[in-house]
């Protein structure tokens, strides 16, 4: 059952110039699965008007966390809210990542880590994580991830870290042969690249990706968030955000 909650901010921390970790105190018990998201409404006024979709980054005890990049007006306001202020979150919404049966591979590009962290945490010591960012300072929660995963492969475009280049290249080299189901979240260009790699290798590995589209209702009513799939338009908020990669028209 989806709910509307007014929750108190207990942490709002800048991890980098652009990326913030926001934690809220959960009053009523809240349940959410990895890959699902909430709509966060920044203030009571009408500008910004709509809630902003953020993936559940972590949920433990009475604390729910979101990891977000400051992008426009909404996330900017979010990043400036003070401890103790209340914020309305509605959800959880959307389809979660199908639970992995055994080991699994994860590909995270940049802020995409926000969507897969909770998955990795729920199934500890089963994930091979391929995590890429522009530079090393944007690789977040490295220690935790190291502990939670079987193995972590860090790629940065600037070349520092273990691998130089985009995360999909590292996956092509080290990940494909693992022969594990894939869970991926990152920019569209990463998803496209990933699909190309899978196709080129005639791989029939299961591959789940979380995608983004602008949203209004978050619950399937407005038909605003559709993307093109092989079966026509589908709503990211309800039929997604997790899709099989070969469903998508990229």
């Amino acid at each position, binding site marked *: 059952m989806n709910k509307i909650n007014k929750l108190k901010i207990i942490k709002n921390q800048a991890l980098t110039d652009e990326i913030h970790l926001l934690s809220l105190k959960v009053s009523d018990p809240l349940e959410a699965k990895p890959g699902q998201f909430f709509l966060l409404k920044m203030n009571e006024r009408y500008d910004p008007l709509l809630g902003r979709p953020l993936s559940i980054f972590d949920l433990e005890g009475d604390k729910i966390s979101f990891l977000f990049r400051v992008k426009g007006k909404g996330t900017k306001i979010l990043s400036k809210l003070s401890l103790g202020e209340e914020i309305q979150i509605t959800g959880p919404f959307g389809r979660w990542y199908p639970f992995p049966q055994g080991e699994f591979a994860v590909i995270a590009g940049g802020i995409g880590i926000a969507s897969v962290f909770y998955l990795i945490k729920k199934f500890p010591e089963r994930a091979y994580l391929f995590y890429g960012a522009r530079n090393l300072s944007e690789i977040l929660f490295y220690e935790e991830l190291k502990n939670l995963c079987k193995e972590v492969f860090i790629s940065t475009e600037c070349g520092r870290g273990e691998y130089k280049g985009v995360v999909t290249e590292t996956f092509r080299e080290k990940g494909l042969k693992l022969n594990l189901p894939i869970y991926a979240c990152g920019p569209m260009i990463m998803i496209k690249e990933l699909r190309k790699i899978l196709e080129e290798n005639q791989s029939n590995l299961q591959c789940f990706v979380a995608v983004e589209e602008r949203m209004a*209702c978050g*619950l399937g009513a407005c*038909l605003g*968030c559709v993307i093109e799939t092989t079966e026509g338009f589908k709503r990211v908020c309800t039929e997604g955000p997790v899709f099989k990669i070969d469903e998508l028209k990229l």
Partner: protein
Amino acid sequence: MKPNTEVKVGKLILKNPVVTASGTFGYGLEYSQFFDLSLLGAIVIKGLSINPKEGNPPPRIYETPCGMLNSIGLQNIGYSYFVKEKLPFLKRFDTKIIVNFFGENLREYIELAERLNDTDGVHALEMNVSCPNKNSHWRKMGLIPELLKEAVREVRKVTDKTLIIKLSPQVTDIAEMAKICEDEGADAISLINTVPAMVIDIKTRRSVIGNPVGGLSGPAIRPIALRMVWEASKVVQIPIIGIGGIITAEDALQFLIAGAKAVAVGTANFINPLSAMEVIKGIENFLITEGIKDINDLIGTVTD
């Protein structure tokens, strides 16, 4: 004592004047996880056509100052699927079901109205005359008085259920359009649909949505909608359903005082799924505070 909130729209008696705006409440189902739909005055269903419609290419929405732009393109599941898959569920609630509908041409409007007239569980028809089919002359029925006249007349012939005409704000004289509906036998009018609008991405130099032009909704347009309801209510006797940027009970009350018999909550549902509930509650509280025993004593009481 609980004040009376019942209002009459055509042949329908609504338990309260708060309905949901077409296209913002899906098929009801989506919101039933948040509250009991039986509490609503009525549910207005997403615009329906005879055949399913795919709608416009994404991106379909964009946020604007205190509003949003949409170009859903009237995507819908089509009449048959609606009757088979959605209506049975909706029948379980003690509220009125109003089906918003449109066609690619006047013939389709008439045909669908006929079918809806014969469909059990559909209490009223809301005819969307801002149909965006670019190839049809009839597309302009919401804009050109003569076309509106004929369209309402023809559709009126095939249904004796409550017929509501949902008008476009893109006209010089909304009162004239309202009067035409009344004269041709419509039972009520809904005011307003979204306002045609545009936002350009200055980097790509393209519209931020899949179509160049979309429809503007939300609090930004509320004062425009209110003005139109007020203007129309001065010339027609039939009930008006006020729509446009209603978020709170105070907003809704403005429309009622201006002359609307009922109000529809639209974009607000996206911001807070309980909006319609809160509007109902707030109206009731206002009536109690102001000592008004019957909501009908409040409707249209604005002084110039």
